[in-house]
């Protein structure tokens, strides 16, 4: 049985093609203005890579903010359920999943069967999401991709205490003005986001082992900061960005 999952997020769309629980292909593209088009495009790319024709797909499930827009979706399901399903397929030991995306972050507690036992999401404020990092990168005039590496050269983490992204940005600006090393500020930013996310996970009541997915999982600094707070290691999946799409393909098979 061949199934496909499409995860249409606010910034990127992702697709995955599965055959009997094995990932044949994944694909990522920007969402842009037209969510349906973006979803269909990544789906077509993934199918091409997998060498499967659209007609050969037994079931398609859509997830993410644009989940209702995909015309070929037989099943529509939230990214919470999908992330859990994807992680359970590829990393069945994992019990807590932390997903930090562009404007959402969430933590999911999973049972032995891979089902969602409980979940929490960030409130409407951007602290603790990828957006927080983007704002800070702009204030520091540093490429976001180099954040992780730069923070590892920090002597110590500068202190950033504000919850509000706007106020935290001005804290960063005053640290720059005070001559604080850029590396230390970045490390401080990672500590700040780490403690926001930690507070959220704490609300959930987490269980080890823990895995992190989403774009921010690529940032070593944030992962290290969160590991320190949790006092345990965090695993990163090679499919971090596409976990929602893979999970959707799993859910498509179940339905």
């Amino acid at each position, binding site marked *: 049985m061949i199934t496909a999952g499409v995860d249409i997020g606010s910034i990127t769309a992702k697709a995955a093609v599965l055959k009997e629980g094995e990932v044949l292909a994944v694909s990522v593209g920007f969402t842009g203005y037209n969510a349906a088009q973006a979803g269909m495009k990544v789906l077509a790319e993934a199918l091409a890579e997998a060498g499967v024709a659209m007609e050969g797909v037994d079931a398609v499930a859509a997830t993410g903010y644009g989940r209702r827009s995909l015309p070929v979706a037989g099943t529509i399901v939230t990214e919470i359920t999908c992330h859990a399903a994807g992680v359970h397929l590829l990393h069945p030991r994992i019990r807590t999943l932390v997903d930090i995306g562009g404007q959402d972050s969430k933590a999911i507690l999973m049972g032995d069967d891979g089902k969602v036992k409980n979940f929490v999401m960030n409130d409407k404020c951007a602290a603790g999401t990828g957006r927080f990092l983007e704002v800070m990168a702009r204030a520091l005039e540093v490429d976001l991709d180099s954040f992780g590496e730069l923070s590892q050269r920090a002597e110590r983490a500068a202190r950033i*205490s*504000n*919850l*509000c992204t706007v*106020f935290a940005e*001005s*804290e960063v*600006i*005053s640290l720059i003005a005070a001559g604080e090393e850029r590396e230390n500020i970045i490390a401080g930013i990672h500590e700040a986001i780490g*403690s926001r996310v930690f*507070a959220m996970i*704490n*609300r959930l*009541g987490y269980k080890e082992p823990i895995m992190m997915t989403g774009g921010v999982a690529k940032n070593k600094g944030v992962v290290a900061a969160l590991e320190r707070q949790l006092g345990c290691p965090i695993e990163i999946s090679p499919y971090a960005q596409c976990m929602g799409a893979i999970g959707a393909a799993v859910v498509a098979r179940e339905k």
Partner: protein
Amino acid sequence: MNARTDEKERKKIKAVKKMKEIMTFYYIDAKTASETGKKVAWITSGGPVEPLIAMDVIPVYPENHGAMIGAAKMGVELCEKAEAMGYSGDLCSYARSDIACATVNGGPIGGLPRPDMLVCCNNICGTVLKWYEIQARYFNCPLFILDTPFCHTSFSAEAKRYVRRQIDEYITFLEDVCKKPFDRDRMAEVGRLSIEGQRLWQAVLDTTINRPAPMTAFDAFFHLALIVTLRGTQQAVDYYRLLLDEMNERVREGVGAVDEEKYRLLWDNLPIWYRTKWLSDKFAAHGACLVADTYTSAWCSSLKYMNEDDFLESMAEGYTRIYLNIGVDEMARTVIAMIDKYGADGLVMHSNRSCKPYSLGQYDIRSIVERERGVPTLIIEADMCDERNFAEAQIEGRIDAFMEMMAAKGSA
């Protein structure tokens, strides 16, 4: 010793040492209550403590504890713990800190002693009702609620009857929990000491009418502890007499709390406990002295309703008509009276996310004060205990701009 350190030494309030000593013994006493066989009551800051003292019960104040947690900069950690327990981050940071602290015995003094009873008076807010319900469930101990109807424009005869009846219910409650009769003679004595303590505290605060002021509101925030925790005891009376003597001495010698006092400001709302030093230095650097505040004076705000010869009768009115349990317009009148009394040139309002009854209405008080007295207002957005709501850069900018404006006004 150079002149500068000499001057600094001269400015130090000597009574501080005594105060720290008293508070240390007080907490040791409270924390060892289970060994000494004394009962412990947790009580709200505006609550009727005198009957507890008369019954030899040790009163413990979660709000005072909250202030200590804030001053020790341990608020964020405990608030986060409460949030992990499911409490919204928008709730009062004293309540969050205390609720979390009770479960881990954390904070600067390793938690408060376990209560034998809880006494909640809602004259300061509705938050304490919810907070004490939570603690009553957690500790599984009896809770007495003194319900003091809000006085928007008046204190009605019905309300007076209701509160008066509750005082009797309170006494019955104490007799039940303590398993001993209430001693009315002792109560009368405690009542007299309470009123004397309040008068002395008011007298201490009033020494700042002098120019330069011998102390600031930041000092008052510290010395407040006894009128809250040990009101009704000889100890509090003795201490405030000592402090009053010292302040009068400073007045005679012309010792000001702030070098070259140029501006006199009035503080509104609770202190920002984790930043009192920073704020104190910040204002002092501009030659601004916070000569008075609406917060520490609240513990003697209803003296006018109290009768020392009949404490129990008058406490119904005294406890109901305190500063926070009144309408915004009456609060504004109080602020104006304080501006006049202490000769304040400006008003500094702490818009405190943790305290809605104190903060909602501040914008109207500001307008009334500006209209009636032409006195400018600085608003600082922060929180008394949760440092995550303190934006230093913004606040520093606002203070500087406000002081520049005061300077321009003064030279005009």
